């Protein structure tokens, strides 16, 4: 288990795994409204390496979604920088597919199939035929085969989110950005989706940045977990999960890690800085 405070370099890990795919350095993200200046995150820095399953964990309103949007290129940091493969992120692009938190991220004028095929066609990454085939495949994976020709307004909340997940996964992007994708799914569907995500990752070894509220999900899915504090989100700790041969976190470790995160998030005493990696 690694707990790494904000700001200090992760030389060891970086050296061991090649340069970071995504580097966020001292990123301060703000919203300017007509009266206020809302600071969503303050000087957040972390590195995401190739094939990381990187989890962002933090309380409601701490800036997780904003951070993800910044990585996707929708929000520009007022301070610090975000770079992808050593190039500063300055615009959105299909190399970073995002699953948004909101239910209305589907294009209402496209059927489920067309929605899933849409980024594949729009980005010219796949031909129309291939895109539709892939779309059908991923729609099947999220168990919506019978709804392929339905329009989004006829779906339930969880079904909409599953379409969005299929849409992002079907692109097989360099980086998959997911903002609480499984929050509105029931336990079984959620577990199935988690399995699918992991198996997709095993196939293509893509890099995933994943926002979740569930500590269990974080431990289950992630190999590295960034814990953010409230009042503009700052890095509280960066943890690593150690996995067994079956890819699962041993149940002893699981419990210990969960305790630790719970302590960090809910306990009165903040975990001391520099607690060692």
């Amino acid at each position, binding site marked *: 288990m690694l707990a790494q405070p904000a700001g200090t370099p992760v030389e060891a890990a970086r050296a061991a795994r090649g340069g970071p795919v995504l580097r966020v350095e001292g990123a301060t993200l703000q919203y300017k409204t007509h009266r206020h200046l809302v600071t969503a995150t303050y000087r957040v820095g972390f590195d995401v390496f190739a094939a990381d399953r990187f989890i962002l964990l933090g309380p409601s309103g701490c800036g997780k979604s904003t951070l993800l949007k910044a990585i996707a290129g929708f929000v520009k940091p007022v301070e610090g920088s975000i770079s992808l493969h050593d190039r500063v992120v300055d615009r*959105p692009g299909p190399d970073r597919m995002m699953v948004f938190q909101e239910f209305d991220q589907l*294009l209402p004028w496209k059927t489920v199939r067309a929605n899933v095929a849409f*980024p594949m066609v*729009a*980005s*010219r990454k796949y031909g129309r035929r291939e895109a539709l085939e892939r779309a059908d495949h991923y729609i099947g994976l999220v168990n919506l085969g019978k709804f392929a020709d339905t329009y989004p307004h006829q779906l339930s909340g969880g079904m909409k989110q599953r379409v969005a997940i299929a849409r992002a996964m079907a692109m097989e992007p360099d980086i998959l950005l997911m903002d609480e994708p499984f929050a509105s799914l029931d336990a079984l*569907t959620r577990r199935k989706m988690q399995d699918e995500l992991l198996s997709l990752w095993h196939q293509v070894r893509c890099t995933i940045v994943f926002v979740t509220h569930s500590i269990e999900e974080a431990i289950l899915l992630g190999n590295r977990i960034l814990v953010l504090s409230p009042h503009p989100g700052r890095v509280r700790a960066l943890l690593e999960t150690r996995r067994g041969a079956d890819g699962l976190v041993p149940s002893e470790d699981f419990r210990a890690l969960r305790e630790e995160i719970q302590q960090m998030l809910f306990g009165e005493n903040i975990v001391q800085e520099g607690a060692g990696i």
Partner: protein
Amino acid sequence: MSREFNEATFGPPSEEWAVVERPLPLLQRLFAHAALRRLLILLALAAAWQGYAVWADNPLMFPSFTETIDAFWTDIRSGVLLIKTGNSLRVLCMGYAIAVAAAALMAGLAMTTRLGDDLLSTLTAMFNPLPAIALLPLALLWFGLGTPSILFVMVHAVLWPLALNAHAGFSGVSDILRMAGRNAGLRGLPFITGILIPAAFPAILTGLKVGWAFAWRTLIAAELVFGVSSRSGGLGWYIFENKNRLETASVFAGLSTVILIGLLVEVLIFRTIERHTVRKWGMLR
């Protein structure tokens, strides 16, 4: 784990689920028919017209429905009305098409650059209130007499409201949808056609309807101003001529033709578009 676990069912998979709907009373069922309801409205309007005309008894100012129908049939049979309507429709469609293209261009520009945005809102605020006759000298100078001038004036009439509607529609597209589009790599024109236009389609459709109506209004008014030579005039000319001749029933026949075409376009074109787009997509109730 069963494969179909998470799937609800389309249609009645077994007869058990095919719940028979409660039958409604006949009157209510008839009333549920949109076409029938509209027909009733039209009949009521015609009856009101006839009643008022008979009561007012001023055929030179306000002919009755039957007189109008008479004049209508006479001029339909003689072909005059059809030819004039054809002339008008041709010019109308041309002007409308140009205006729609220009509005699309302007609204698109306004969406992509800040200067375009300012330009659109400034130009709209400036020129939209100007009546067509104000443009007469310019039209005469630039396009001379005849169809090009009429087109110019029509484009002026249609362009601004359409661009306003489209621009407002575009501006109202939710951030999430924009982000979804940008995320897929769309920028510039593909972004506009792929995201903004469909997402703003309810507003655009309203703009198209308003624009269509103003194209008619302006065409008829413009034909009076630009007069065209007396051989090739359109419906506006037909109305004007009959007005001057005090053939009021024919004037009303001309206006009824405009109304009729308006209804047909609404029912056959706009309703159909609406049904196959925004209503199907759940964007409009």
